[in-house]
């Protein structure tokens, strides 16, 4: 028999042996870290709401997870998410798209100042770029500015400190201010703000746009911190609503496919980028949707646990329960919220949207 490239493939390269004949709970070598993450590695995280689980696990397992905007210690753990604390490495809320992330860094570095500075509603002020960070809004425009100034300083600090930046891609769909291209995390009028069809336009980011935005983000980050590496993932949580005109299922698949393809290309192009398959671990058909809640959208706690144990097993060698947190240089607070407490702005669309 003639030799050929498939003859000596490892088991994980063969569907029958890697998937069909195995329990979906015990797929091997699905994730081989490109670079190690130790407990001394300073990790920053951002992204869509699924990324909150990642940050929480890093903290609970005693990794040096950066928190540049720690919650006031007096604020109870169960209340922190409501004010945007303990979700990520700074109080930026959910960043669903690469363009949002890029513009956040540009705002922090002073190279982009959106025209839409604040929304006033009944004497309270909301930040268009994190409209749910203060449930009742800010008391004044001055207060909003002061808190935002501190926030953007915290983002700069993260860029300087992080050894690894973890980003979870969420969506390709966004609403943009047509005047300057500023990407809003939520469609104005859903949580706060007023929708103006003359000023707010729907945009569905293409593969080249997402790719270009993330590469530009990495370039800016590595200008500040040349050794920074990046771990990218795709949120397994489908869209809750689409403004694309498609069915929400096909819109979700299109969106996630673009993001997944961007991740593949990022890994292919850049040695300093790795991909973790949280998306596949939850959504791929061998998983039989077992990790979703009955709404087939939100990920059940057992799904989160499966994803995270796969991640940490790959880095630590064995599947482990979350150990006692260790202190870090800037200790992150360890909240103990219920899974229901994961703050997903996107869910607001369930109330206000289609």
């Amino acid at each position, binding site marked *: 028999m003639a030799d050929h490239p498939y003859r000596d493939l490892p088991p994980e390269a063969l569907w029958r042996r890697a998937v069909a004949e195995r329990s979906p709970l015990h797929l091997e070598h699905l994730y081989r870290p490109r670079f190690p993450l130790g407990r001394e590695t300073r990790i920053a995280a951002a992204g869509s709401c699924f990324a909150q689980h990642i940050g929480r696990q890093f903290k609970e397992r005693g990794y040096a997870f950066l928190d540049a905007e720690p919650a*006031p210690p007096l604020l109870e753990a169960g209340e922190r998410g409501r004010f945007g604390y303990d979700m990520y490495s700074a109080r930026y809320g959910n960043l669903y798209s690469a363009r949002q992330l890029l513009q956040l860094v540009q705002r922090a570095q002073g190279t982009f100042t959106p025209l839409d500075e604040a929304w006033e509603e009944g004497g309270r002020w909301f930040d268009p770029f994190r409209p749910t960070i203060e449930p009742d809004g800010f008391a004044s425009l001055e207060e909003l500015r*002061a808190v935002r100034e501190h926030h953007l300083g915290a983002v700069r600090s993260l860029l300087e400190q992080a050894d690894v930046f973890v980003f979870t891609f969420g969506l390709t769909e966004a609403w943009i201010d047509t005047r300057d291209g500023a990407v809003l995390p939520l469609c104005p009028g859903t949580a706060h703000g007023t929708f103006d069809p003359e000023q707010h336009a729907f945009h569905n980011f293409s593969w080249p746009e997402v790719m270009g935005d993330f590469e530009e983000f990495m370039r800016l980050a590595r200008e500040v911190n040349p050794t920074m590496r990046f771990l990218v993932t795709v949120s397994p949580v489908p869209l809750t609503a689409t403004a694309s005109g498609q069915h929400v299922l096909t819109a979700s698949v299109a969106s996630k496919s673009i993001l997944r393809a961007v991740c593949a290309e990022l890994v292919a192009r850049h040695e300093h980028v790795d991909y973790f398959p949280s998306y596949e671990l939850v959504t791929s058909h061998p998983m039989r949707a077992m990790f979703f809640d009955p709404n087939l959208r939100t990920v059940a706690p057992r799904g989160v646990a499966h994803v995270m144990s796969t991640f940490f097993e790959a880095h630590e060698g064995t599947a482990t329960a979350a150990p006692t947190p260790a202190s870090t240089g800037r200790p992150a607070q360890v909240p103990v919220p219920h899974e229901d407490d994961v703050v997903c702005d996107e869910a607001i669309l369930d109330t206000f949207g289609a």
Partner: protein
Amino acid sequence: MPEVADLPDHAPVTITGNSHVIALARAERPAALTQALGEVLVYPWGNGRHESEVFTRREGDGVALTVPQYATATERHTGHPHLRPDRHWVVLGPGHAARTFRDPTWRTHAPAALRLPGVEPVSDGLLTALLERDQRGLRALYRDALAAGLQVVALSAPPPRRDHRAITDGTPAAVVAHLDTTAYRLWERWLAAEGVPLVPRPAGTADDEGFLLPELAARTTPRGTPDHHHANEAYGALALAELARTIGGAAPLG
């Protein structure tokens, strides 16, 4: 200001709360005060650290205190562990923001309104949430008392002291003053909405920044150790006079 209903003559005025009521217990009670208030019983129910959690529940025709220390003290002084409708209850609470301002939070954070450099700004909305969280237990008490039909009045705690340990340990005085002012404003608003009369802090007891005047500060605790937290009996006398004005509409006393 909600009206205070008249109680039968036999209903004694009973002042209780955390250790800040000791200043009132030690205060002289001039005849005019006794004439205005009638029989007055003052006792502290215990340490204020339990007051940020709900520590009451409706029981029978009164309000049960679920913190054993508070119930024991109440029984010792009134003959019953509950707050019952046979007394006119004056419960100290509003203005006691020490649980909040002595927290280490304020070494790394500060109210955004103060624009202090080098610390994380805390919005007015978040500050309100923190303070309302701390007020939860006492608010529940006042609500339970109203629901039980008790005559209840809220008595203000004294202003914070400039020599409080929180300040000497590093919390800026401006932060303490801001927290105290904000907490007091929340109390005023909440009590008015609920219909609970508030005995305000006596006029002229605080300096321009809101701190207790030094001559009204207790120097030592009952055990003789230095006291950086409480007011003294002179303040207590002024507070009693303010109480008489609120309850009885009497002319200034003392």
